[in-house]
Each structure stands twice: as C-alpha cells, then as structure tokens.
C-alpha cells in the first residue's frame, strides 16, 4: 500500500516544474522562484536533519551541562552523588546557535522581501509603456471574451442592459457610441510576439481569475472594477488561459486560448477579423 503512494510522490520531484515561460517579466519571476524554492528546501532539510539528530542524541548533554555548571559554581557532589545545591543546568550551546541562526534567517527573509518587491513594483506599480497595445478581457460564466479597440484605438461604451449573446452583442456594446463601431470581439486572445500588451480586465457577473500560466500572469476579473495588467509575450506559441477563481459549476471548463504569433501574422488575423466584422455590420 505504501509503495504506490510513495513512488509517484518521489517521481514527481524530478518530473514536474513550471510550464515553459513565454513572457518578458517571467524570466525574473522564474529566477526568483528557483532560488526561493532551493533556499527553503535547504531550510526544510536542515531542520529535519536537526530533528533526526536530536531524536538519536542521548541525554549526555544534560549531565555534562550539570557537571560543568557545578564546576563553575565550585559545588562538589557529595557521596550520594547528589549536589548540595541544585542549580538548573547551564544553557546548552544550541541555545546560542539559535541566536546565531535567527539573524541569518531574518536576513534571508529580508532579501526575499526586497527582491520580490522589486519585481512586483516593476510589474504592477508602473503602468504599460505608451506604445502598448490595448485589449479588453471580459469574464462571464463560463467564457472569456477579448475585445480589440479597432482603428480608433478606443473602446466603445458598454451597457449591461444591452448584453445579449444571442444577438451577437455579448458585451453590451452601445450602437450610439461611434467609438464602438470598429470594436472587435473575439473568443481567443491573439497577440503579436515581442509587443507589450495592456489588458483591461472586467467581469460581467461574478469574480473570475484570469490566469495564463505560461505568461506568469494572474489577475482576478472583478465585476464593477476595471483592472489593468501588462506583459510582453516573447515566444510564439499557443498557451492556455484558465479561470483561477471558482465561479460556478463550469469553472473547470472556463478556458480560452492565447495565440502568440509573428507581427505579420497578427496583422493578417486582424484584417480578416475586421472584414468579417464589416460584413456582419452590413447585413
């Protein structure tokens, strides 16, 4: 019974790691993750070695400590082997080791906090560069929609009362707003490689979690809020987009595809999408 339980656990150690990184900021994130895992695994091992040694250690240290304390205090044990005046034994050397290890570990925590904050600040304190392309991500039980602003680079107004997926307006675009006329709504996220993208996250109903493992990116989409995250994909490929915040019975199948393509392929896709949009508008 034990073997089937332990073998896969051991096998996982060598087999599994994070999916390959495909984003610019992910390089630093992965480096940070790696040394954090190594440092903490080392702490885990060291603490357990200490535990195992302690378990097999016989209680000599007490006797030694008592004797040394007695010598220090010039107390000679009497014939019965009992000291005249019993003193608590002197502190063990491990006690001072404790106060040596503490600053080292604290230094490690501080270093972790500083390096991580550095990355966090770079990702989230600073907005995207002015040239970043805009895409809106909208979560709804249990689909992701992606809206591109079109030629005018501006998103049209949406109204909850106009939301109607059956008539082809899943996001509730207001036809009165001219900025929305060229907005493209897609069910997949297509991005050109190497260009920074500024995502604007919304949700129509409940809280969803927008998660692209390969982009090292996670941000909740919260109804009532518009939240921005930005990143730069650096490798062409197809990556899954998941929902990471339980949102209902379809949570596990609320997935979409991120396609990172070459800039020219992106332009082709955009043109085809625009033509399709114009044909639909003409009908």
């Amino acid at each position: 019974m034990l073997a089937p339980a332990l073998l896969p656990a051991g096998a996982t150690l060598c087999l599994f790691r994070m999916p390959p990184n495909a984003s610019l900021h992910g390089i630093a994130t992965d480096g940070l993750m790696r040394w954090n895992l190594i440092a903490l695994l080392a702490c885990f091992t060291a603490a357990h070695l200490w535990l195992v040694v302690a378990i097999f250690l016989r209680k000599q240290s007490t006797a030694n400590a008592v004797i040394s304390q007695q010598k220090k205090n010039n107390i000679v044990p009497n014939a019965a082997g009992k000291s005249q005046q019993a003193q608590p034994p002197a502190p063990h050397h491990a006690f001072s080791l404790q106060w040596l290890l503490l600053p080292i570990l604290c230094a490690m925590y501080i270093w972790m906090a500083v390096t991580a904050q550095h990355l966090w600040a770079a990702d989230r304190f600073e907005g995207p560069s002015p040239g970043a392309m805009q895409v809106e991500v909208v979560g709804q039980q249990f689909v992701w929609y992606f809206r591109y602003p079109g030629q005018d680079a501006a998103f049209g107004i949406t109204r909850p009362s106009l939301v109607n997926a059956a008539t082809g307006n899943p996001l509730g675009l207001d036809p009165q707003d001219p900025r929305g006329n060229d907005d493209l709504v897609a069910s997949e996220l297509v991005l050109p490689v190497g260009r920074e993208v500024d995502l604007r996250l919304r949700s129509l109903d409940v809280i969803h979690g927008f998660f692209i493992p390969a982009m090292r990116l996670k941000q909740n989409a919260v109804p009532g809020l518009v939240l921005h995250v930005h990143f730069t994909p650096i490798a062409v490929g197809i990556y899954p987009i998941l929902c990471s915040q339980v949102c209902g019975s379809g949570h596990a199948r609320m997935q979409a595809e991120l396609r990172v393509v070459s800039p020219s392929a992106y332009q082709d896709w955009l043109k085809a999408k625009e033509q399709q949009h114009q044909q639909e508008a003409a009908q």
Partner: protein
Amino acid sequence: MMKRIFTTSHRVIGAHYLQLSLTAVAVGTLLSLLMRIHRVWPDTPLPFYGILKPEDYLALVTMHGTLMIFFVLTTAPQSGFANLVLPAQIGARQMAFPRLNAAAFWLAVAAFVILISAFFVPQGAPISGWTSYPPFSAIAAAGPGQGAGMDLWLVSIGVFCLSSWLSSVNMLATILTERCPGMTWTRLPMTVWAWLVTSILTLLVFSVLLAAIVLLYSDRHFGSSFFVPLGDIVNGHIVGRGDGSPLLWLHLFWFFGHPEVYIAVLPGMGLATSLFANFTRRNVPGYRTMAAMLVLIGLLGLAVWGHHMFVSGMNPYAGTAFALTTMAIAVPSTVEVLGWLTLLSYGGLRLKTPMLFALGFLSFFIAGGLTGPILAQPALDSYLHNTFFVVAHFHLVMAMAGVFSIFAGVYYWFPLLTGRLMNETLGKVHFWISLIAAYGTFFPMHLTGLAGEPRHYERLSGPIASFSAILPAERGITYSALLLAAAQLLFLWNFISSARRGQRAESNPWQATTLEWAPEGFAVRVEHGPYDYSVPSGEAKFIPQWEAASKQE
C-alpha cells in the same frame, strides 16, 4: 440523562466538543476522499449516487473546507482541549461563566446540524468554496446550491460565530480572573498563553465575520447591495442595482480568515512546547521569549490578511504593505521553531506517542511554514495564487500541523478523560503511517501547483488545457489520502478499546509539572514555573507546580 446532556461542567463540555469535532472530521474526511476519487476517476459512477456532477464536486470542496476549518480546527484545539484542561491548568475550580459555556457548545452543535442540512435541500450544498466570494455567493441564480444551500451555510456560520464568541468571552474571563494564587503570568503553561491569544483573536475576528455574514444575508434577502456592483448580470438578468463592492467582502472575510489560521494552530504550538519540555525533561529555554512570540504572532496575524488578495484587484501598493507584514510574521515563527529545536537538541527524547505527534506537528509546521515566505511575495503569488501549491501550503501548516497537535493532545490527556492510557504500539503505528501518508498526500501538491494546476477543478482536462501530465502524481495523492484516512481507523480502534480495557494510568503518568495532573486537593498556591524539569527535588527529578515551596528546601 437531561442533566448529563445539559451539563455546565467544563470537563464534560470539553469532551462533548471533542465528540463534535470527531463527527465533523469523519464527515469532512469522507468528503475529501470522494473529491480525491473523482479527480482521478471522474467518469466512474459512485455507488448509491452515480456520476458526480461538476457542482457536486464544488459542493464537496465547500463543505469539506467549512467543516474542517470551523468544526475541527477551531473547535477541537480551542474549545475542546481548553474546556478539558484550562481551568485545571490555572488552578481554577471551574470556568468563569459555566452556563455561557454550555450555551456556546449547544450553539456550535446547532451550527453543525444546520450546515449538514444544506446537503438535503433542493439543489444541495453551496458551491462557492469556504470563502464564499460574492457576487457568486450573493445571487441565488449564480449556480446550483447557491439558493437554499447558501442560506443555510450563512446561518450556520453566523450561529458558529456567536458560539465562538461566547466561548472566547468565557475563556478570556477565566484566564484573567480565575487563576489560583501564585499563578503569575510567567508561571502559565504555554498552552494557556496560546488560549489567551486565540480567545482575544476569536473575539475580534469572529465579530467581523458575523457582521460580514449579516451584510451578505441582507444582500440576498433584503435588497441591500453591499457586495453586488451596479449593473451586475447573472444568468441573463441584471441583479446589481446598488453600487456594492465584492472586494469589501474579501477584506472583511480575510480579516477573519487569516487570524483564523492562528486560532487553529496556536494551541498546537503551546501544547508542543509543553510536550517537548516534558518528554525531554528540560525546562523551556527562553520561556518569556516563547510566550512573547505567541502574542506577537497573534498581533501580527491581525495585519496580514491582504496577502490573500494580491491578485484580487487590491491596490498594488497595499500588496507591498501586506507582503512586508506577512514576511515580518516569519520572524516570531522562526524564533518559536528555533526554540523548539534548541529544546530538542538537549537529547534524551522520550519518544512516547504524544511526543511523536508533537514532533510530527513540528515537522509539518516547518514544511508548511517555509512555503509561507514564497506565497508572501506578490510577484511569486501572482503565479501560485489559487493553485495546488497553496493547497499544499495550508494543508501542511494548518490542517496537518493542527490535526497532529490534536492527536498529541488526545494521546497525552487521554488519562484525564478515562483514567487509562492509550495503547503505545497502536499509537506509534498510527503515527508513522499518518506521517508518511500525510506527506505523500500533500507534498506532491506543491509540484502540481507549480505545474499550474488551479484549485476547484473537478477534472484535470478542460476544453483547452489538459493537466493529464500530472495524472500519475494525482493518483499517488489519492492513494496516499486513502491510506491516511484508513490509518485513522487504527486511532478510532485504539481510542475505543483503550477507553474500555486500556492500561490503568497512575495519577501523573507522564510525570508532568502542570496543574491538570495534580492530585485532588493540592495546596492552592503555586510556587513554581510550569516546566521545572531536570531540577532535582528529593527522589523525583522535577518539581510539579502543585508542590509547596517548603518541600524542596
């Protein structure tokens, strides 16, 4: 019979609390096994039920979490053990408010019954997880189980808040006013320090949770809009008419939710300190520091809730602030761990079953605690948040550490309950299988989490992403979980058979120093610290707290 049920005797109430927890942990474990089986064999029909639907899986997750956190990890270490031994440990004859205490217990039972009844209403139990984020939890149309099931969940947790509140008022008053003469702050056993901190935390944070639950209930039934934003559309209908904020719930909930972790684990830390001292026969080095660190962990614990919200849409600057307070809490935790390791390194450990479980607690506390600093870094959490890495983290540091400390307490205090000892051999077998199976269950979850697997996924392969590569690990986890659960049958058997035919215990079987082991009618003046081991005193090599000062001169 009525007298026995509606007793105000704290020891009987303590035993009742433990029975309630035992029932809850049995149900909660069963639910988790169904989850584990479904994840590995999603298309295999269950006997008497058929194929689990996605919402059934989420209902299992929700009820498992709620049962384990409220009715096991909050109830057993705090209310159960504290009622059993706290008054004795401080030399009090009874609790400060015995009737309030009994009322608190029956409220907890009522909360449990209400929660379980959610399984039997139309559409079944709620599916929004134990954190119940709105608007998902605020709108009945958001999913199956979010109607009557969610209402019952809210009422149950509301009643549980009241129960915890009354119980902690009673405990706090008892510790503050009922200590016997001579029981100064520096002579309190570490368990009492822990209960002092947890009862203050309970008082503060369960009030906030109760308020949040009342607000959410009001959103659902009285047309208010605390948590539902304007224009929110669920299932094709506009439900958001006010301008509420889902993030408000997250703040209120996690202000409760994070200290809750310390409510679950601090009593275990106190107990582990006592057991390490007892079974190494050494005084606790730096007693004042250890006690101060317990208090500091409790205090800091009130200021770190935002680390559950790094990716929630909270201001990123707030993320930085919460990351720093969270990292700060690693310091007192490290001091505690180093203190224990120092105590243990004196050697000569007596590896009795309670000691083994206390060591197991320490092992899990270290294993789960060390991933804390990783998750406290928003840059890393923005990958790991809501993946199985987090599941591994809190199951080790809260669930397994908590449960192992509960086991340590049961094996250790069993003679107080029954006058008998639990069987050592069975206890040791129970320990080793549980330790290995618990690591086998929760350690690989770090790796599936690193692979990106999100929580609350009822199956591993979706329309786009497939996690079939981690299926072998998932199978290993399931086998391990089954083994872990099976090992607990050994504990049950040991508990029942030892209660009936176990070896009779002497009056102080562990040669302990704290007052719960004092013989009847000891002099009610305490002259000694709680851990005066390895201090020669006549024949014995230790001085119990009930020993009069004159004796050793």
